[in-house]
């Protein structure tokens, strides 16, 4: 477990924190934005903010919680600022133009693209659940969302994704 980082500790420790958490931060941003360059930029900004706020963080667990929350908020803010992707209802997410079941290797990319066009709150919940393996109550605390809302987002998002994939012959398992 990483020792607690404080602003007055050597820079090397901050670098170690970045190395430990960079994949998590980058991936959260990438799965929300579906844009590597933007995800890198968001990731850099989050870590710069961490550097400025290190003295206020009290434990390794606090650092992790703070990073997850800061990243998801920053990524959602970026989504809203760009509004390149419409706020679509789950049911109207267009099916990707891929063919029958032998195209399975593309399933992961298809799922990432479908996630990236979910409404922002649903997207944040899904990424927290399936990238970070957080349970609904942890997600509710992180996103400051009612637990019932988190569960509703999960339930609806899975139902729609399932329907979209089955329709394309990718869901018969």
């Amino acid at each position, binding site marked *: 477990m990483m020792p607690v980082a404080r602003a007055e500790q050597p820079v090397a420790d901050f670098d170690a924190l970045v190395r430990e958490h960079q994949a998590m931060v980058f991936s959260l941003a990438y799965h929300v934005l*579906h844009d590597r360059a933007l995800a890198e930029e968001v990731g850099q900004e989050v870590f710069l903010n961490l550097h400025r706020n290190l003295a206020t963080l009290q434990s390794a667990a606090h650092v992790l919680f703070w990073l997850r929350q800061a990243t998801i*908020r920053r990524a959602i*803010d970026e989504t*809203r*600022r760009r*509004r*390149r*992707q*419409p706020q*679509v209802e789950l049911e*109207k*997410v*267009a099916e*990707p*133009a*891929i*063919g029958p079941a032998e*195209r399975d290797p*593309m399933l992961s*990319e*298809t799922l990432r*693209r479908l996630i*990236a*066009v979910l409404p922002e709150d649903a997207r944040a919940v899904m990424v927290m659940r399936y990238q970070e393996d957080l349970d609904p109550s942890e997600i509710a605390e992180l996103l400051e969302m009612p637990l019932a809302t988190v569960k509703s987002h999960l339930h609806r998002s899975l139902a729609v994704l399932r329907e979209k994939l089955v329709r394309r012959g990718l869901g018969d398992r």
Partner: protein
Amino acid sequence: MKTVVKLLLLAVAAQLPAQQIQFNLDHLAGKASNTVDVSLNGTMLQFAAKFLDGKDSEEAQVKKLLEGITGIYVKSYEFKTEGAWAPADLDRVRDQLRAPQWARIIDINSTEDRQTTQVYVRSENQKMTGLAILVSEPKELTVVNIVGNVDLNSLAELGGHFGIPKVETPPQKK
């Protein structure tokens, strides 16, 4: 985190044409976590159309859509909590849509997500002269007013495909 995108460029005219609705919703901006406010009259639309890229398929579709339109007005608010907007806010808009030229063509009430959607069309001499869309949810309120002849199918199609990433189809095996 409060985000405000205020895109208003045009001062409100002293007297609005009949096809244009007075929203009276600006008081909600202060309570909203996210606001979109668009107000473009015919002159601004013609000006904006010049900057749409005909080679980009989405922008080309929008450019074509704008041909019959003389005004686009949108107010969209997202709130962090329920109760930020009141039924009276929407009633003031609906009252203007009771004029004889307006007809409500869609009225959908979803109890599951507590969303209400109403679409109104304005006609004169058997020609469409305006569109209004009212969408309300506990934490969101959106009102759209488009003045002019709107190709509803094109608009809906654009709304369904904006930003949806295209998945590359692998080459066919020979």
